[in-house]
Structures are given as C-alpha cells and as structure tokens.
C-alpha cells in the first residue's frame, strides 16, 4: 500500500505541470493560435519565479512566498506570450516559426541573464514549499495518504485550474466565443466578436499557465534551475493533442503519462517489477510507446480546432 501511495504522490510531480501547461496550450489553440512556444514560456516562468524565490526566501512565510512566486511566473509568462500573440495575431506570422523562435530565445535569454545577474547560469534556491501533511485532510484514511500527504500547493491549484478551465471553456460566454474563434473566426467576427481580442486572451492564458507550469515543474525536483525545462513543454503539447483539446481528456492524458513515467522511474522498489530486472531503457521507453499505441487507435477522428494555426484574415473567405 505504501508503494501505491508513493507512486500516486510522486506522479503528481509529472501530472500537475503537464496538465497545467497542456491546459494553457488548449486555450491558445482553442482560440486559433498554435502555441509551440510552451517550452520557452515555461522556461521564462520558471526563471523569474525561481529568481524571485531566491531573492525573497525567508522574508515571508513559505506558502505565501510560493504564491507570490507563482504570480511572478504567471505575469512573466503572460508578458512573454505577448510576443507570440503579436507575431501570430497582428503580424499574421507563421505560428510555428514564431513559437520556435520564442523557445530558442527563452533558453538563451535565461542563461545570458543569469550569467549577467548571478554570474552562473544556475540559480540556486531553497525549496521550502513541500507540505508534509495537510492539516485534518491528511488524516483521512487512504484518501489522505493519496492526496494530502507529501504534496505541494501546486497540486490543488492545478486541480482547481482543471475545473476552472472546463467551466470557463464550456459554461461561460468567454469560452463560447473563444471556441468560435478557434473553429471559425469569420463566423465569430460576423457575430460581432473581436477575434483579435479573443485570440490575445487565448494566447495570454496559455502564457499564464505555461509560465506557472514552468515553476511548478522545477520547484519539487531540484534545488537549482539551469535554464531548461527538460522538454516538458513539448511533452505538454503531446498531452494536449493526446487529450484532444478537452480539459477532461487532458487530465487523463497527463495522468496516464505521469503514472507510467513514475512507475518507470521507481520500478526498482515495486516488488513485482523489481524481480523482472528489465533494463531501465524498457521503463524509460514504455510511457512513450504506450502513448503512441493509444494514439494509433484513437486518432482517426481529430478534434483539433479547425482554424488553429491560420492567421485570421478578415478579407479571406
């Protein structure tokens, strides 16, 4: 049982950032802008959030500090995403090119800036944000062990964001309009919706969530940040597509990926796997292979937003 708790608790380290960033990507693509810059935005978010933590560590209570740091990451993520929005919405640029450029720039920028500011590309920080046990809830048998021990505030924020995303997308006026812009911007425009504004909103939400996701990914896994997020932005993109642009499916995709990855990393302490003595390569490959197999059988019908990737041109029919 302990092992199961352990796997679940640890899976959240993958699930939460992947899900948050994929949800971000969803808002962008639902508004009609493909955002391949998620990786870069994560880097920017992580960089500023962690830099903030480093500067203000100890000056305020830990959970307050992390909340403010999250706000910093979100803000910087939004600001950075504006470059993508400007290129792809105002300038009608090729969205892949713009995204690729922003990925390159984020990596170079953080390293360059870190070196100028702290003399090294690595930014050390103290992770004092782990919650060993949530008061009261942590004492609930089973459930407490699964979800309220050895955890981070992120987990709950992530789950809240999942519910919120789903609500916003399907239950609000904003969501309806956003989806219309991603499916048929001409129709939205004709209905009096400002497509530019909605697309900006979509990209900026993706900036906020990807920025946050960068911080959420890095904080629990290390004690210093060295200017990359290990390709998680691309994995989040995979989760987004795997999740067919729907919040609930994105959640399941992230869980699928998070749990299989965790199992592969900790196989050696799972008794029935440990005896197999398989090479670690097998475990490392397994989550990816499984995803590929699932995709093979679920991709016939794609739910991709129809207009995603196409600059909106009022004149075009």
């Amino acid at each position, binding site marked *: 049982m*302990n*092992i199961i708790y*352990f796997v679940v608790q*640890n899976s959240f*380290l*993958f699930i939460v950032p992947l899900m948050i960033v994929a949800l971000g990507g969803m808002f962008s693509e639902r508004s009609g802008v493909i955002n391949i810059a998620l990786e870069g935005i994560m880097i920017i978010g992580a960089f500023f959030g962690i830099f903030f933590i480093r500067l203000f560590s100890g000056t305020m209570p830990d959970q307050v500090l992390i909340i403010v740091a999250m706000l910093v990451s979100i803000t910087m993520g939004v600001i950075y995403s504006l470059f993508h929005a400007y290129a792809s919405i105002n300038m009608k640029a090729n969205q892949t090119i713009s995204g690729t450029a922003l990925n390159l720039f984020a990596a170079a920028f953080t390293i360059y800036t870190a070196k100028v500011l702290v003399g*090294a*590309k*690595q930014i*050390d920080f*103290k*992770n004092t944000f*782990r919650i060993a046990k949530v008061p009261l809830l942590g004492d609930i048998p089973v459930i407490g062990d699964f979800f309220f021990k*050895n955890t981070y505030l992120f987990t709950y924020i992530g789950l809240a964001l999942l519910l919120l995303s789903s609500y916003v997308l399907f239950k609000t006026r904003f969501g309806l309009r956003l989806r219309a812009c991603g499916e048929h911007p001409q129709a939205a425009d004709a209905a009096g919706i400002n497509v530019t504004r909605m697309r900006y909103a979509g990209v900026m939400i993706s900036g906020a969530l990807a920025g946050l996701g960068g911080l959420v*990914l890095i904080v*629990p*896994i*290390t*004690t*210093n940040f*060295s200017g990359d997020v*290990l390709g998680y932005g691309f994995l989040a993109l995979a989760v987004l597509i795997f999740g067919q642009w729907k919040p609930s499916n994105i959640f399941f995709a992230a869980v699928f990926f998070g749990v299989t*990855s*965790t199992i592969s*990393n*900790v196989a*050696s*302490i799972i008794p029935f796997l440990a005896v197999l003595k398989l*090479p*670690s390569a097998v475990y*490392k490959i397994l989550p990816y292979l499984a995803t590929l197999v699932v995709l093979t059988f679920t991709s016939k019908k794609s739910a991709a937003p129809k207009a995603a990737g196409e600059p909106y041109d009022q004149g075009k029919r």
Partner: protein
Amino acid sequence: APKKATYEIAMITDKGDIDDKSFNQGAWEGVKKYAEDNKKTYKYYKPTEISTAAYVAAIDLAVSGGAKIVVTPGFLFEPAILVVQEKYPNVKFVLLDGFPNNQIYTADYKEKITSNTYSIFYREEQSGFLAGYAAVKEGFTSLGFMGGMAVPAVVRFGYGFLQGAEYAAIELGLTSVNVKYFYTGDFADTPANQQKAAAWYAAGVEVIFAAGGKVGNSVMSAAAAAGKKVIGVDVDQSAESPTVISSATKGLGASVILALDSFYKNKFPGGTKVSLGADVNGIGLPQNFAKFTKFNKAAYDAIFAKLVSNSIDLKDNADAATADLLGLTKVIVTLEN
C-alpha cells in the same frame, strides 16, 4: 575601444559549464581564487562541441588570447593535450583526471607527456571510502549510491564508498549493510532522478551518496521531502541543502591552485603525473561533523590516518568491471540499471 585583452591563465570547459557542480566548477574555482589572490588575468573558454578537434581549437583560441598556462578538466581532454603540448611548447598545461594519450585502445595506442604538461589524478576511491565509512559508522545500514555517468572518477567514488561501508561494517561487527547502486546516465536534475531517489528513500534507504554533478540537486530535493540524508561530492555541498551531512571532496581547486602557484614560482612540475590522495590532503571530508551524531572528528582522523599511511588497500575502476565484483562480504550491493 578595448583591444583584444590577454588572459594568462586559461581554462577550457569540457562539456559542462563552470557551474556544473562538478569538475569544471571545482577547477574554475581554483583558477579564479589563485588569479584573484595573485592579480593574474584569467578566463575560461567554451569549445564549440565535445570533440578533440574542438578542444584543440579552444586551446588555440586561448593561446591566441595570451594564455601562458591552460587548465583542462577531465579525461576527455587527453587526446587534445597530446596534440597541443607539442604544438605549444611554451605554454603549460594542467590536465586534471587524465594523462595525454590518443584514447585509441588498440595497436595504435599512443601516450606521451612532455615537460610542459602536468597530469593530476585524484584518488576518488579514498574520498568515497571515507564517505561510506562515515555513513555506516553513523549507524546507517541502508545506503544508496547514485552516480552520474559511469566515468572513471565517478566509478572510483562509488567503489570507494562500498569499500568504506564494508570496512565500517566489519569494525562494527554488522552482518550486513545494504547499498543500492545506480548510475543515472546523466549529470542533470531531472524528475526521473528525483523520483528514483525518492523511491529509494521510500524503500528505506537512509542516506544517498550523490556523485553526479546536478544529480545531487535532485537527490537533495527528494531527501528534503523524505526527511532523509545526502552525502555530496567533489566540493563541500553542505550549503546547498540542510540534508547534506557531509561531502566526499577531492581537492580540485586546491590542486589547481598549487599547480598555478608552482608555475608562477618557476617550479612547474611538467612531465609528471600525480595521484592525489589522503597523503597529500588531495581528498577528504569537510572538517565540520556537526550533522553527525555518532561519527565524529576523532573517528575521522583515525581512519584518515590509515589512508595516509596506505594501510588500507582499495580497489578502483581498474580492478573490477562492476560493483558486485569487488568481493565484498558485509555489503550487499543491489545494482540497478
């Protein structure tokens, strides 16, 4: 406008950066300290790729930038130094953890050291030994070794760690000490490494010796979550996390400082190869034992003296292909892959 500045002391990074928490960082700190203390100009250069040709080009660049002495950390530089020591007879080379050779282990093998090259090795197995010894003496019986890539220095740390644990187990009359043993295959702080460490802690491991640059940061992160301990590597890493109880250091910086100092005193020990161990204070644990409850300075000094006097025979990477072939009796090694 400023002219092309000249830098007397140069370091070439191998593949990490000067803040890799490992080789490059250790060497760089030595270069920096010596140069600043003695008002010398200094600079590091990054090669364009990880190849002999690129290393040679970087050394060319350093020399054209006025380098009189070039520090190259890591065995990857061996073939490059073989070339440049003759190309630049007036420039001195300090090769850490390597000996100039062409790395072709066939009939074409060539090795040569000229009078302008000084080759320094470290007896990491001794440092690892102290770490393993201290851990078991402290009362831990479930240990972990998480190395980065299985390069010779890392392997020596690991083997020493196991043998130190064995030595202490025998002294304490323990019947068994369990050690999980793993090379991560990178020097990075990935979620995979963090989870691996977390899994080990969850499975009862009490302390992990993290010998792999930034792998240590993942291990520390996991240790903090599990309320367990870490032993750092190369330099004193206690400042990085309260979970670090000690570090198996090697005198990277100190040896670089010594080499630079001898160079400027015109006593450069060129043409020689040294292996720095306990006898010359080339390795050791930091002198602060406050995070131990049972193990202490006296115990450390005693075992250290034995290493100095060479009365403990340690096996290194040349003696065993894998860790389970070290012939240990008390230590039960679980190799993971």
